[in-house]
């Protein structure tokens, strides 16, 4: 679906990612690495919020290297940033409604599905998103992405700063979305164990370099510790 060839990217004067190659099929594709490895940069670049410095990006056979973020969204890729992933001055319902801008099915139908998946959001639908707790905020962010009826979701460290209980719920929902809706997921995480439980394949980044690309089942602890430099 999504093919990444020789991708390099960065901010301002610094090149963070160098020469990354992989392709995502219909699966949960995990991106692991210690902090500073370049996971967020990778996802931001895939979402086209950062321009590529080199390499190319192909989505369902079409070259999208120069496509703008909003057009890519319309083509079926949703992105959930790690931080600032909701509109704080808008209500929960309005946040979800904005997620439903793209997609063809009736908005109400999709809204009902999201509320079904995250009943907590239904309880808080008129509350400002800025006043939600960390876990609820993450749920809203994922919910907003699901509203887009995407074929692929780029999910950046959804578990960061969440309590273990919330992490469990969230990963359950992610697995659920994959299983029941057939949506593919690129999941950037630092929390390797939880991720490996749900992921099909894993890309491990280390200090901006592609360290290894492996089946989730085949990855062992030693390889991981090496990548994390522990």
């Amino acid at each position, binding site marked *: 679906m999504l093919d990444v060839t020789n991708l390099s990217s960065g901010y301002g004067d610094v090149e963070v990612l160098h020469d990354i190659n992989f392709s995502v099929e219909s699966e949960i594709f995990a991106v692991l690495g210690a902090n500073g490895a370049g996971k967020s940069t990778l996802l931001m670049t895939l979402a086209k919020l950062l321009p590529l410095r080199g390499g190319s990006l192909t989505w369902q056979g079409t070259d999208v290297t120069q496509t703008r973020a909003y057009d890519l969204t319309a083509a079926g890729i949703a992105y959930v940033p790690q931080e600032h992933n909701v509109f704080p001055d808008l209500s929960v319902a309005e946040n979800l409604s904005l997620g439903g801008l793209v997609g063809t099915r009736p908005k109400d139908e999709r809204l009902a599905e999201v509320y079904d998946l995250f009943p907590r959001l239904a309880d808080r639908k008129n509350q400002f998103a800025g006043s939600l707790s*960390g876990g609820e905020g993450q749920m809203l962010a994922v919910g907003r992405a699901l509203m887009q009826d995407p074929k692929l979701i780029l999910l950046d460290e959804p578990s960061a700063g969440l309590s273990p209980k919330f992490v469990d719920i969230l990963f359950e929902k992610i697995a659920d979305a994959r299983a029941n809706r057939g949506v593919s997921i690129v999941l950037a995480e630092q929390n390797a164990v939880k991720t490996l439980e749900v992921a099909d394949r894993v890309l491990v980044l280390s200090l901006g370099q592609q360290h290894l690309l492996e089946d989730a089942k085949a990855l062992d602890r030693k390889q991981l510790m090496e990548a994390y430099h522990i």
Partner: protein
Amino acid sequence: MKLHMQGLSKSYHAGHPVLDVPEGTLGEYGLEGLIGPNGAGKSTMMGLLTRRIAPSTGSVTLEDGKTTHRLNPLKSHDVARLGLVKTNQRIQGFESLTIRDSLRLAATPFGQETYRGVLRDTTMDAAIETEIDAYLARFKFDDPDGFAKSGGEKKLLDILRCMILKPRMLLMDEPTAGLPDDVTQEVMKLVGEKVKAKEMTVVIVEHDLELIWKHCKYVHFLSEGAILFHGTPKDVKKNRVVAEKYMGI
């Protein structure tokens, strides 16, 4: 120099604190590392220690053998003048100052920038110029009389600006990010010399754990806003909690 934290906490929203350190001391061992997974509160701790962020509760004190300074009532420039300085994680710089001018700015003690001084010809201070020359001879810039061009040069300049302030305690926030490997080695060598000569104590926050294991005498492990563990690099590396928090294993 040592930094002592007492009941230090910071919460942005009521309730869940991003950082909560009942008690802790940094800088006892000369060259220390501060590590932890994303969201552990490292940047918040750095901000609190240099008074860029105001704490919700608790206090920070700076001990330099004889005197103890309470940092709470101080502004960030006061903290710098006490000898506690931090390098920046994100690239920061003065876009209109050349590399040399930027170093001169840092090297000029505050208070020497007077209105009367404008009339006197005091822009060049021989001692300062010599020192700057020494740094520029050791660390090569493309054009030392021009502007820092690449991200690496800007990052290096940021570190040198802090060095030339002659801090007695230096906090380094991700010094290697964006820095070429050979420059990183040279920076660490310089830091090592200064620590050995007891000119300064250094605390390094780093993602590149190899660097921490290699250079630090002592490591603090921060996770979920608390210092979970501290010890020698060997002890920390062996500790299961560290791997668990980093990788969830």
